[in-house]
C-alpha cells in the first residue's frame, strides 16, 4: 500500500472517498438513532407505523 509513487494519488483518492462514504452511512445512522428517527430497510413503513401507534397509545395507554 502507498508504495508506488505513480499510483499514490489514486490510492489516496480511493481511501478518502471510502472514508467519506463510510462516515456518511454511519453518520446518518447515528443521527437517526439520536433523533429517534426510523432506520433500516423499511424506514418509511416504520415511521408511519410508529405515528399510528403513538396515536393509538394516546387513546389507550399501555398497561
Amino acid at each position, binding site marked *: *500500500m502507498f508504495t508506488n509513487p505513480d*499510483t499514490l494519488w489514486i490510492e489516496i483518492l480511493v481511501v478518502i472517498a*471510502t472514508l467519506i462514504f*463510510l462516515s456518511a452511512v454511519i453518520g446518518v445512522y447515528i443521527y437517526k438513532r439520536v433523533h429517534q428517527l426510523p*432506520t*433500516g*430497510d423499511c424506514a418509511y413503513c416504520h415511521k408511519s*407505523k410508529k405515528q399510528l*401507534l403513538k396515536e393509538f397509545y394516546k*387513546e389507550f395507554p399501555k398497561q
Partner: protein
Amino acid sequence: MKRFALAGNPNCGKTTLFNNLTGSTAHVGNWPGVTVEKKNGVYKKLSEPISIIDLPGIYSLSPYTSEEVVSRNYILDEKPDCVINIVDATNLERNLYLTSQLLEIDVPVVVAVNMMDVLEKAGDKLDEKILSDRLGVPVVKISALEESNLEDLMKVAFKASQSHRDGSSIIYHKDLNHLIGDVKIAFKGKNVENPLFHAIKLVENDEIETKMHEDLLPMVDDFKKTFNDETFGDDIEAIIADERYQYISKNFAKAITRHEPKPDENQKENKSDRIDKVLTHKVFGLLIFAAILFLVFHFTFSENLFFLGGLFEDVVPSFEGTMYEGLFWTDAGINSPGVILFNFFDMSFSGIIEAVGGAMESGLGEGHWLTGFLCDGVLSGLFAILGFLPQILVLFLFFSIMEDTGYMARVAFILDRIFRKFGLSGRAFIPMIMGFGCSVPAMVNTRTLADENEKISTIRVIPFFSCGAKLPILVAIAGGIAEQFGFGNVDLITYSMYCLGIIVAIVAVLFLRHTTLKGDAAPFIMELPQYHWPQFKSLMIHLWDKAKHFVKKAFTIILASQIVIWFLSSFGWNWHMVDSMQDSILGSIGMLIQPIFTPLGFGSQLTSIGWVFAVAAITGLIAKEDVIATFIALGAAAVAYINSGNVDPAILEALEADEEGVTAVVTMIQASGITWQGCISFIAFNMLTIPCFAACATAKAELKEGTFKWTLLFWIVTSLLGSTFVYCFLSMFSADSLAWAIPVTLVLIGLGVGSIFLIRYLNNKKVKVA
C-alpha cells in the same frame, strides 16, 4: 390548500382511488386491512391543488380498533374540507353503516359508490338520485379500478367543500332522539364542535366520549334507569346499531334494481362462489395451496423447468462459447423465468467485473491492493446482491398476483382451521404471510390481533417466514448444495427451506400457546373479497416498491458492510495488510466465536477457514443479504488458502472466471469441509435467528414493555436449538455420523418434550396456588 379525506370500509378500493387521484404508489391489496395508516397525496386537476388523505379502512367510528381511532381523530380534529366516503356498490347496505355515522359530523360529505363496473356486470342497476335524496349528500358512481368518473367525483367534492354542512342523524327512535337532543344541547353549551356526533357517541356509551365528558354521563345514566327495550334491554349501543341498519334496509333497497335471475339461474352460484368451492375445500384447499406455492418456486428458481432435464442431456447450452452461455437452457434442462433473469444480470455483472479487473491490473500492475479492494471488496459483493433482485421481483410478482386476485384472503381462511388447533386464529396468518415480504410491516399488522398473548406469539414467529432479504442466502447455499453434493433441483431445496420456516413457526406457536403464552384463539371473521384479475399498475407498484428498497439497501448498508469486511479480512491487528486471511482481524474474531456453532455443524469441526460461516452468520444480523456478501468478499481471499491444495483446481478457475454467489459458496464448502447437513443447518440458523435491526426495532415498539428481551432470548434459543436439531437429525442419514446422531437426536427430542411438560406443570402449579 383544501384537504379531502377518503374514508370507507376495508377493501372498498380507497387506496386504488387514492393512487389514481394522486399518482401515488401506495400498496394496494385485495384483502381487508392493507392501509393501516393515513397517507397524503395531491390532486392537481382542479382549479386549485387538493390534498388527499387516504384513511385506514374502518367499519365504524367507534374506537374498537386503532384504525378506527386514527380515522375518527383525523376527521374530528384535523377538520378536512370534505370527506369522500367510498362505499362498495356490491355491499351497499353494510358500507352505508359507516356513512350513517359520518353524516353525524359537521363536515361536507360526498358518497362515492365504487365498484360500479362489478355491479353493472352482474346486471344490477343503481339510482344515485334516490340514494342522494335519502342521505342528503351528493352521490357519485365511480369505478376506481377502471378510473371512471373520478374527475366528476372531485368536481362534486370541490363544490361540496365550499359550503358548510351540519351533521344529520338517521336515528328515529323517539325516546333516544329526545335524549340525544338534550345531550346535544349540553354539548353546544360547552362549545364542543360536532355536538350531534359527540351526543350520539356519548349515548352509545362510547369509550372515548365517556372518558372525555364524564360530567354529562349522569344525564345518560338517569335515562337508562327508566329505559328498557323489549329486545335489547338498556343496551343503547345495540339499539342505535339496529336503528341504523333498519333505516338503511328500509330506505336504500329502492336505490338498487337487482338483476332478475332466470329460473335456472336461481340455483346458480356466482363465479367467486364456484371458485371458492374448490379453493377453500377442507382437503383440496390446502393441497392446492401447497401446489401453487411449489409452482411459484418452480417458476422462480428451477434450472430444470417442468423436469424436462432428461431430454436435454446431449443438447448444447444456449449461447455456447459466449459470456451468456447457458442463459436459457443447459444440459440440465430449461431455466425458469427467474433463473433466466438471474443469469442475465449475473453474467453481465461478471463481465463488468472481469473488464474492470483486467483494466486495473494492466494499469496498476498485478496483485495491487486497489484491484482486490474494488473488484473483490466492492463490486463482487454489490453485483452479486443486485443479481438476486430479478429473482426476488419474480417471486414477489407471483405473491402480488395471489394477493391482488383475492386468493391470499382465502389462504388465511383455509389456514384458520389448522392454526386454530395450535391456538392461533386465521387472522394471525395475515401478518405471517406478510412476513414473506418484510417482517417490519408484518409485525405492525399484528395490532389487529385482540389477544395480547396471540400477538406476542405471532411477532415471535414472523421472522421464521423467510423474507426477501433471506432469499439470497437460500438461493446461494441451495445452489452450493446442489452443485457440491449433487442434490436434485435448487427450487426443491429452496421450497423445502420455506416449508421448514413454516413448520418451525407452527411448532413454536404450539409450544408458546401451550406454555408461557396460553390463551384461546379469537374467532376469525373476515370478509372474503371478490376474485378479480390483478391490475397491471398495482402489480408494478408492488414490484417498484420492492426494487427501490432493495437497491437503496445494496448501495448503502450492504456496500458499507462489504468495505468493512474487506478491510477486516485484509488487515491484521498491527494495521498491516496480511498475506493470508487467517492472520486478519476478521480471521481472529471468527476463530474466537467459531466454537459456539459447533453443535450446529458449522463450528470447530470445520477446517481452519470454517470461521467464515461463523462470521457470515453474525454479519447477517446487520442485513440478511450480508451473509452471502460476506462469502463473496471472503471468497477471493480464500483463494490463498485454496492454493494450499485443499480444493479442486477447477473451482479455483470457476471462481476466477465467475463471481456469482453460488461459486463463492461452493468454494467455501470445499475449503471448510462443511457437510451438507451443516449447510442446511446454516440456512436454518439464518432463517430462525434474530431478524435484522429494523425488524427488532419494530418488534420492540409493538410489544408491551418488558416483553422484548424475552423475545430476543426466544429467537436466540430457537435458532440455536432448531439448527442443532436439524443438524443432528440430518446427520442420521449419513453413515459417518449415524453413531452419535441417533442418541443426540433422541436426547434433544426428550429434552424438548420434557421441558414442555415441566413448563405446563409449573404453570398449573402456579394457577393452583393462585
